[in-house]
């Protein structure tokens, strides 16, 4: 996983609530057995006018002119600002994978689907929660000022406006922050507790043996 410390990038507005993971990456692309290759199909049904299929070459597909991320000013966006309940729906980790490959490192919204929120940290995408009024203000500023760039300082937990004119603090779990800042793999960290897990399991085997039926071991 790529480390995350400080990030500055163009912010793009997605002015709608309940953007679900089916919208972020439609199901036909979930047939892939790989972890990559989802970027071109990010928001596929909104981005293109035709129906996307896995492994399709997207260069000449008809683009939907009404889709916000198709506007040239957001072509290089890496911070996505959306409304409440972003990433609700299915557990597909393909959603943060697609966002990352599509160039995004940060999402800012008032709230998230729990599983998406969790998955994002595991893949190196930082989901930031800001109050609804602050998201309102951001959505406004992004649209008012072309090329609006935000800086996200994970160490200091701040979202910083262009020219440092304003900054807002955000919350993040200490453990998640630590993993993200160091690009650490959770599994390695958990394995430090392997002995504890083994002891716990052994105790469980004795107290609830029906969870460990002999024929399955």
């Amino acid at each position, binding site marked *: 996983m790529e480390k995350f410390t400080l990030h500055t990038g163009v912010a793009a507005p997605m002015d709608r609530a309940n953007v679900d993971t089916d919208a972020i990456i439609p199901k036909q692309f979930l*047939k892939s057995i790989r972890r990559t290759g989802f970027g071109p199909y990010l928001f596929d049904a909104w981005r293109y006018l035709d129906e996307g299929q896995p492994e399709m070459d997207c260069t000449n597909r008809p683009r939907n002119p009404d889709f916000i991320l198709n506007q040239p000013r957001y072509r290089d966006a890496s911070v996505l600002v959306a409304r409440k309940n972003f990433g609700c729906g299915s*557990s*597909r980790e393909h959603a943060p994978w697609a966002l990352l490959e599509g160039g995004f490192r940060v999402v800012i919204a008032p709230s998230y689907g*729990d599983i998406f929120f*969790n*998955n994002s940290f*595991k893949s190196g995408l930082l989901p930031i929660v800001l109050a609804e009024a602050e998201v309102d203000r951001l959505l406004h500023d992004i649209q008012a000022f072309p090329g609006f760039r935000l800086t996200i300082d994970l160490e200091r937990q701040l979202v910083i406006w262009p020219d440092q004119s304003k900054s807002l603090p955000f919350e993040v779990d200490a453990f998640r922050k630590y993993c993200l800042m160091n690009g650490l793999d959770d599994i390695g960290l958990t394995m430090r507790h*392997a002995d504890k897990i083994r002891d716990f399991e052994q105790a469980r085997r004795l107290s609830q043996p029906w969870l460990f039926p002999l024929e399955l071991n």
Partner: protein
Amino acid sequence: MSATIASPTENSVMHQQTLYDKLWNQHVVHVEDDGTTVLYIDRQLLHEVTTPQAFEGLKLSGRKVWRLSANVATVDHSIPTTPPSEGIADPIARLQVETLDKNVREWGIKQYFEWGDPRQGIVHVISPEQGSTLPGMTLVCGDSHTSTHGALGALAFGIGTSEVEHALATQTLLARKMKNMLVQVDGVLPAGITAKDLVLAIIGRIGTAGGTGYAIEYAGSAIRALSMEGRMTLCNMTIEAGARTGMVAVDEQTLNYIKGRPFAPKGEMWDQAVAYWKTLVSDPGAKFDRVVQMNAADIKPQVTWGTSPEMVLSIEDRVPDPDKEKDSTRREGMERALKYMGLQPNTPITDIRVDKVFIGSCTNSRIEDMRAAAAVVRGRKKAANVKVAMVVPGSGLVKAQAEREGLHKIFLEAGFEWREPGCSMCLGMNPDRLEVGERSASTSNRNFEGRQGTGGRTHLVSPAMAAAAGIAGHFVDIRHWK
């Protein structure tokens, strides 16, 4: 908001635990300073879509599966619902299924209900059916509807692929404790009203983000009165209310359901297990961070009209009018949904005509659902405007049971299709799907844009309501079905 379960005898609430508290506490291996918890996982369910990258990750990092016997695998999402002997035409889907086959064999996972096995089916249907979901367990799966298993008094939740890999490698997950929410439903559900209507009404009430950050326990006389199938339908759609996990306390019905299933304990061990399982209820006086109360008698047949499960109404209502909505964000959301759904404001729900009917999915593909739909269809014919009405049992065992009862004949005689088990048109990863502009009455759980096929329009309903729409050609009030 905060409240407690009323108890005349209990005056100290300090050490009273909710069911969720108990399940959580039982599985804590280690807690980091910031509260991040290493939580032991008893069971993991695997399917073809969210596991290939997890197994690949294991291999690349040179890790092993911690405990093979904790894993149960099947195929469900991308397989067609035609007989396995006909194979999988889509080469990408075929590769995905073959990859699971290969991983299961290479790693040595023994519990595999592969395509063609009579016990194969949707993960959330087969695991309870096999007794592989038991009360008191932590159970995870790379699928958000894992909440289904909470119906058996388990702590069950959906995870992403990195977490699938984490659970395979360590038999644990890193998690944080959620808050407690109680959804208390008392009274009696009127005739014709099912767990599906109840859960849609709950989502309509609290919203699709209402449960975010909470574990939901469903309690009250109406919940106790639900069958195990009904409780699974209810817990299944908990994720549509924003909560990752939902659960129902263990009672006699839970025990009766589990007894005798292949992986369930037997003999002396059964008694030992039951003694423990009976403690899996919220203590009187246990504290919940939020309480929602509903009266079962008020629930009417529910139909979603929009592109989020919270956009739901009763069959007696009319399509909402955005002009009457004052909040601008909500109004825009409504307008967008109506445009996508091709609906005019103020249209009576009963005037909405459907092109396809889908009876299936992990929400409603169990034997009771098949029976409820068959009872509506019996002796009638599919409406001419309905192009396809598809019935997809949740597992091979449900299918076999339904066929023993002759239900498939009822469907076939009415012009409905009777398919092989799988997820099917719930998400249309296989050939079963809606075409652009087509409208469905569906017993599945999500009405998101494009969920059942690009440009498809989904209305979520109960099995009886879906079946009735298939016969009438439009939505009808099942309470007046003769």
